[in-house]
């Protein structure tokens, strides 16, 4: 799908700049709504975890970690469950709305990691982590970004599936079974959360390092003077 490109004439008579419309409002809206929902899910999830901070037996109980209450939402188990059971619907709805948009609009090649992106992953990783030369940008997202975003979306789906297995291990016994039973489903739910947190950390670091233009485009949809040739 060709992106919408416009030229902005400068009032001071400088060279006109190009601007490209990168993000439909659905993408921007669901991005921020999902970010808020994720924040609440993780925070309340930690408070729920505090009620039994272990993956072993109840007797004898060996705590895995003592997560500080200051970094948890809800105040107590019941309160945290209220947050968790409320925001999970927002989390799921934004995810479904986003995926529906990407599929039905045909916009997904912008973000979906595909076979032709495989070759570009290493040069990009070398640039980011080992001071390699910067590969030329040809589209909105570089191959490493696509890999990261596609993985994050996959992980988002997994947090929901593992969560359903923990919440409804009887009605969705097949899901719990796929994960090795209720007990392990709880472990998977925890691990997928950490995987998403790992992504969020990297995402935020990249935004701080060189993401102002990207940040603005996730708010308004428009990116001025993109570093890739707009098509």
């Amino acid at each position: 799908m060709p992106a919408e490109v416009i030229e902005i004439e400068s009032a001071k008579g400088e060279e006109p700049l190009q601007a490209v419309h990168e993000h439909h409002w659905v993408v921007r809206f669901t991005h921020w709504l999902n970010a808020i929902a994720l924040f609440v899910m993780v925070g309340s999830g930690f408070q729920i975890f505090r009620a039994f901070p272990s993956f072993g037996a109840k007797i004898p109980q060996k705590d895995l970690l003592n997560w500080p209450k200051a970094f948890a939402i809800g105040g107590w188990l019941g309160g945290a469950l209220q947050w968790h059971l409320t925001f999970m619907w927002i989390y799921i709805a934004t995810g479904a709305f986003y995926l529906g948009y990407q599929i039905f609009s045909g916009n997904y090649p912008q973000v979906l990691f595909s076979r032709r992106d495989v070759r570009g992953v290493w040069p990009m990783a070398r640039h980011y982590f080992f001071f390699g030369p910067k590969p030329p940008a040809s589209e909105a997202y570089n191959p490493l970004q696509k890999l990261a975003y596609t993985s994050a979306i996959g992980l988002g789906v997994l947090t929901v599936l593992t969560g359903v297995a923990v919440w409804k291990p009887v009605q969705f016994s097949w899901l719990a079974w796929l994960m090795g039973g209720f007990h392990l489903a709880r472990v998977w739910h925890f691990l997928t959360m950490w995987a998403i947190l790992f992504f969020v950390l990297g995402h935020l670091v990249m935004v701080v390092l060189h993401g102002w233009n990207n940040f603005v485009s996730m708010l308004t949809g428009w990116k001025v003077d993109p570093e890739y040739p707009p098509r």
Partner: protein
Amino acid sequence: MDERKFKKMNRRELLKLTPLVALGAFALPKLREPLLKEGLVFSDWASGKLFRPGHLATTFTDSELTPFAKFPINGYDVDDPGVIFENWSLTVSGAVQKPGDYKLSDIQSLPKKRQNTRHICVEGWDVIGRFGGTPLSEFLKFVGADPAARFITVQCADDYYESLDMATAMHPQTLLCYEMYDQPLTREHGAPLRLTVPTKIGYKQAKYLTDLKVGHVLEKVGYWEDQGYSWFYGL
């Protein structure tokens, strides 16, 4: 496009995100509580819709059982409310044809069922236990419960109370349980009679039952529910 017009367009695009500000309502204590309550009510409604009356909870082999000594005893108050077994009976009231006091032997004369099922606590731990007792559906038939009634409420010797939707009460694995691990219930586990409901979370499995009421309206919900936990909490 000139610069001013572009800026105006950007502002308009930004405005499309303003509905997100509505979530700020969750930051206001006055609005937060009713909103979270609605979220809980909605989740319970969805849970009710997802519940399938004929779908059985997974059962386990004897070798998968958690040893009896490692089956946690979770009371909200005391482990032993001091029930005097000789005087004990289950008082049945509400929408039933035969209200009254039922002795343990009355309940034990009904069909018996034994099952190894998973017990999941809201805290997150789980154990697999062996439970024996009378399906609640058999007992409800025995006392002539109104099939149109919608709720079961139970009262316990330790002042705990709980309630079940009728669909769950009629589920074949919902038991009036008087045995665990093929032995009579111990006091800590709710002797002489408790509920075991493998399709529900742990706190619904009330212990030390003394009263059972069949009703069309839910008068009393449950001890933990009144503290803010989910009512349906179907697994």
